């Protein structure tokens, strides 16, 4: 393992229960979505809320003080019962970091049973920074200059076209694949199927990306009940879905790609460049002591349909430059060798930031249990999630059964 990447966590925790509030633009409080998801996860686990010893919330930055202290907000809404509480914020990796807190608590012997909850209510349109004149905040600066999230997605997409010959049809094919999968998912916001031609006919937002290549922002909530393996075994769960590895690492200096919200990369005059996205999966694989060849299903962060192709390479499903070939071979469809985004991905969900990484874990849990219905990946044994967000945050979670 590379220096600075931290030690490996030994031991595993069990995913005892999962629950979601369907994604959409419901216009209600994020607390309602979170409690709905939490109750669903508790019911799925067969655990009473009063038994939970640790509640870990994923914070939202858009819903005022209750969002900053989401763990306590959800605890109060479920009914104060004296559990220990935590709130985590890590942009798109928020849910994973909240899960990491629960996992660490369990593995250190601090508790047997924890609840992890993330939920969000989002405004329409582009995600935007906090108000005021704040040139010290890189997120403020890039919006003043006119660089939205799709700006960055599009820079990567154009780069992919130049380096590897990716085409707009390839990007459209990712959307078509994910829309087909998501059409079978009752928790997805968008359940319409699309053709390549329909994607290519949608309006350009940030060349070469079109409206149907870019993920929306959504309301939604997701929750997990996690426990020690001993506790899960006493319950006699089968199949037992376990968290086998996790990663919430920072990038390593120097960055080779411009990352949100920065307007420049690091300078690499005195250091080599490193790929942040590749490092996320690498740490999780090392912790789980497996490799990409062991993966049967993946949920990756398709903020744009072009970025899904980048992820194929960054999680090691294929060498750099071969993602288009992997996609077009059908390998990443449900029924293919290694299906990616059987949930429908962000293409069908839109992003509910603090809930999204947990939604990825929910989907893999259903897949590993064999409960994914029409989206089922046959014989799924190992799954990996991966995501990336602002300010050097990202995560990967490996589940096994």
């Amino acid at each position, binding site marked *: 393992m590379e220096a600075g990447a931290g030690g490996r966590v030994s031991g595993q925790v069990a995913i005892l229960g999962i629950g979601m509030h369907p994604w959409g633009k419901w216009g209600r409080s994020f607390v309602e979505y979170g409690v709905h998801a939490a109750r669903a996860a508790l019911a799925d686990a067969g655990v009473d809320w009063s038994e939970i010893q640790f509640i870990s919330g994923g914070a939202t930055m858009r819903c005022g003080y209750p969002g900053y202290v989401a763990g306590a907000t959800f605890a109060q809404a479920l009914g104060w019962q004296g559990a220990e509480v935590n709130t985590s914020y890590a942009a798109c990796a928020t849910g994973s970091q909240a899960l990491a807190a629960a996992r660490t608590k369990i593995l250190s012997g601090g508790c047997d049973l924890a609840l992890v909850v993330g939920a969000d209510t989002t405004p329409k349109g582009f995600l935007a920074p906090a*108000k005021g004149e704040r040139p010290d905040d890189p997120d403020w600066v890039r919006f003043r*200059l006119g660089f939205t999230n799709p700006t960055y997605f599009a*820079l990567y997409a154009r780069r992919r076209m130049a380096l590897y010959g990716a085409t707009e049809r390839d990007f459209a094919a990712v959307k078509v694949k994910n829309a087909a999968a998501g059409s079978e998912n009752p928790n997805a916001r968008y359940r319409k199927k699309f053709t390549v031609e329909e994607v290519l006919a949608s309006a350009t937002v940030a060349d070469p990306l079109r409206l149907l290549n870019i993920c929306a922002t959504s309301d939604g909530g997701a929750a997990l009940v996690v426990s020690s393996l001993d506790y899960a075994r006493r319950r006699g769960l089968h199949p037992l879905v376990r968290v086998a590895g996790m990663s919430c690492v920072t990038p390593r200096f120097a960055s080779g790609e411009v990352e949100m919200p920065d307007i420049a990369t690091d*300078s690499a005059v*005195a250091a080599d460049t490193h790929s942040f996205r590749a490092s996320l999966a690498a740490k999780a694989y090392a912790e789980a002591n497996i490799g990409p060849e062991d993966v049967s299903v993946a949920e990756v962060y398709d903020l744009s349909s072009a970025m899904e192709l980048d992820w194929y390479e960054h999680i090691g499903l294929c060498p750099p430059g071969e993602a288009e070939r992997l996609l077009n071979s059908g390998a990443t469809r449900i029924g293919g060798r290694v299906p990616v985004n059987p949930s429908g991905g962000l293409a069908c969900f839109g992003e509910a930031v603090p809930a999204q990484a947990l939604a990825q874990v929910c989907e893999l849990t259903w897949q590993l249990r064999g409960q994914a219905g029409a989206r089922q990946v046959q014989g799924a044994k190992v799954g990996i999630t991966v995501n990336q967000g602002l300010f050097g945050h990202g995560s990967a979670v490996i589940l096994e059964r």
Partner: protein
Amino acid sequence: MSDRTRAPAIDGWYTLDENEPHLIGSRCAACGTYSFPPRNRFCPNPGCGGAELQRAPLSRTGILWSYTNACYQPPEPYISADPFLPFAIAAVALEKEKMIVLGQVVTGVGVEQLRIGMPMRLVLETLHEEPQSERVVWKWKPAQGGA
């Protein structure tokens, strides 16, 4: 030209030279690492540990690393002309500094005129207008072998 004052949209990040404007970065006295926007202290290179950073002019030319455009009006704090005018955006790799810097592309140059690998140079142009002043910012322009 109007009589209005010409002022930077963001203070201290670029010079206002009419002919040869440049970005102002910082450079570590110990390891030579650049930063943009400029930092006051503490080198970001974890292998260095230097604390002393100096202001340093960045290269005025570079190679187009990637590009896109904004077809829809960005949200605040972007200040839009009325009506909104779409603009192209460039990510330019600076050879000496070994870093990539984003910027809008000058008015009148669209994505169809850009290709990865082409030389680009830095110019100043209006970012937004205020009643008493014209707020300028750095933008990238295809170098086309010219000045």
